[in-house]
């Protein structure tokens, strides 16, 4: 990930979150151009989970994700230009135009794949952790999924196997309380999600997913335990998606989430909180923040220009990659 010299390490978490926020805002703004013709699930408001967890990982550790994956891909170091090109259906996209927003991959960065069937990558990530163990790779796998995934049987099958074989995997549940328009309370009985993971034999933590430093600390501890052979770990990170489930807009007018809850969560913006933390420690000046914003914007502008100017995939490429050559 490009780090500019004007930012110190103390700024890294802020910068990574701000970068994801500004990238997604740019995507949202340009979505109306009708050139990014694929479903897109923005993580605006949830940046701390992606940044906090990946900050605790090594470069060689692997990450898997689901449909709302931009933040996870970018936080792990996935190539920005290739992601934007993928959304624009370009041949230079990270899947050469076969995936779009819901299928991202950058294996060089350790982002091993995201797919949009809820629970779809859960067992795949467990299998990658199994391979890490069998091949003595010392690699930890981090896996992002949502609260809705707890309603999928495959999650429980996967946790069972991960615990049985004490695999080095970090299950990260981003609990944003909603599956599309349906509240958690309408889908699951009153009991803590992390309690189910504990019942499967996982070591669990339950915390505010909008506190990037708390997330990083919890993830670092969990990753350390996983790496030292203590078996699968689980983080329940409470957070909130600011925009609609799928698409670029804010959909508060639909009324499926209470205005009070929405306002309370907006006040818990992970980026604002980190800025306040840094200012309180006298580690961030307005000039530094201004420069950070400017550098990020420059990177985004260049990435969009590069991505959009790339060619569309040649029609004859459609049949490629079905089987090994």
């Amino acid at each position, binding site marked *: 990930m490009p780090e500019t010299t004007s930012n110190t390490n103390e700024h890294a978490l802020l910068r990574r979150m701000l970068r994801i926020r500004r990238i997604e805002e740019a995507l949202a703004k340009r979505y109306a151009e009708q050139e990014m013709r694929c479903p897109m699930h923005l993580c605006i408001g949830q940046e701390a989970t992606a940044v906090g967890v990946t900050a605790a990982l090594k470069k060689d550790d692997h990450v898997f994700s689901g449909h709302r994956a931009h933040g996870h891909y970018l936080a792990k170091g996935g190539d920005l230009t290739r992601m934007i090109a993928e959304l624009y259906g370009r041949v230079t996209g*990270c*899947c*050469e135009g*076969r*995936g779009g927003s819901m*299928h991202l*991959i950058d*294996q060089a960065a350790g982002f*091993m*794949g995201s*797919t949009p*069937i809820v629970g*779809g*990558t*859960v*067992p*795949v*990530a*467990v*299998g*990658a*952790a*199994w*391979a*890490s163990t*069998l*091949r003595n790779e010392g690699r930890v796998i981090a896996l992002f999924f949502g609260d809705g995934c707890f309603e999928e*049987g*495959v999650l*429980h*099958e*996967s946790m*069972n*196997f991960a615990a*049985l074989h004490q695999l080095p995997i970090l299950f990260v549940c981003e609990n944003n309380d909603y599956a599309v328009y349906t509240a958690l309370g309408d889908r699951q009985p009153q009991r803590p999600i992390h309690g189910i993971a504990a019942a499967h034999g996982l070591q669990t933590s339950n915390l505010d997913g909008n506190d990037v430093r708390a997330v990083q600390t919890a993830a670092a501890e969990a990753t350390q335990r996983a790496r030292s052979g203590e078996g699968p770990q689980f983080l329940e990170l409470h957070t909130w998606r600011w925009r609609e489930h799928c698409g670029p807009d804010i959909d508060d007018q639909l009324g499926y989430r209470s205005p009070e809850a929405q306002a309370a969560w907006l006040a818990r913006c992970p980026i604002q909180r980190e800025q306040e933390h840094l200012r309180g420690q006298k580690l961030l000046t307005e000039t530094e923040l201004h420069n950070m914003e400017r550098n990020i914007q420059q990177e985004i502008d260049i990435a969009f220009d590069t991505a959009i100017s790339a060619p569309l995939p040649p029609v004859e490429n459609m049949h*490629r*990659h*079905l*089987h*090994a050559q």
Partner: protein
Amino acid sequence: MPSKSSLKAEQTTNSREQSGAEALNDALALCLERDPSTLLIGEGVPDPMGIFGTTTGLRDRFGAERVLDMPLSENGLTGICIGAAISGLRPIMVHQRIDFALLAMDQLVNNAAKWRYMFAGQASVPLVVRCIVGRGWGQGPQHAQSLQSLFAHIPGLKVVMPVFPDDAKGMLCAAVADDDPVIFIEHRWIHPVRGEVPDGYFETPLGKARVRREGRHITIAAFSFMTIEALHAARALANLGIEAEVIDMRSVSPLDVPTVLRSVAKTGHLLVADTGHQSFGVAGELISRVVRQGFDHLTAAPVSVTLPDLPCPTSHVWAAHYYPTAVDIAEQALRQCGISIGEAEHRELEKLLPTTPPDIPNPDYRGPF
């Protein structure tokens, strides 16, 4: 009766007569031996019955880390094997009944079949899923399905169905060596089938049919166990002056249409026999392709011999009516060649009637599964 078939494989200097189960066991041992990244996992793999003898002894030889039982989590474990496969391992999964694999359709269809394509060739899924098709002894509606057409419909999945022990061994080795997911369908009744099998490791290419009997009057293209029924039928037909060419299709996807077209160009007649249901099935697909690509060769409308469009009923009284046999193939072949069934034909067809009850694979069989 079918198990008595000792149909000769291509002779090599070093070969031995084996059952299908023994040949599969050898293939698994050779794959585990030659590549330490190979894993074998499934419900019952290390148990005393060893998946009908196909996995017996392998845990002792290769260790509990590589030869292991699995939780009753077909979808989860399929996804876990996919994750292991994209991470450099070569898992072989086993389902004692193909019906169990239905629980894993999400992972097989959405992930295994698509991972390479959707990620533009950046990752491979070298996964083999052995699925056993049950038949007889009251296997019934949920233990006797033959679901090859379901899997073959999905681009990205290879689907193979060997029947003879040499092919079972060579195609299993080829499936494990393949960098893409392969659904390896074993009809339960191929396990006792005996034949000559070359020693040592060898790969039999996937997607290639094999002419098991040459003939000039009618082409019988058969899948899996129906190949054995077809060869019996061919002997009866020969007594009636009809020389049938019997093609063991061996693979469903890729489907070796050129081999069938070459045969039909010679015979002008086509009968396709499959272990699956009639509608939207493999037999219909093969006929469709031959008609589209070789219409001018055909002198009569092709026919198929398949299961009826019904779930498999359990009571043994229905087995003879549910499962088509050599008799049905021979009868359809005669009609296809424009020969009406007279007294001589009846006598030959009667000789084909099974001497064992139609719900067991051989006279020694005592159940329970």
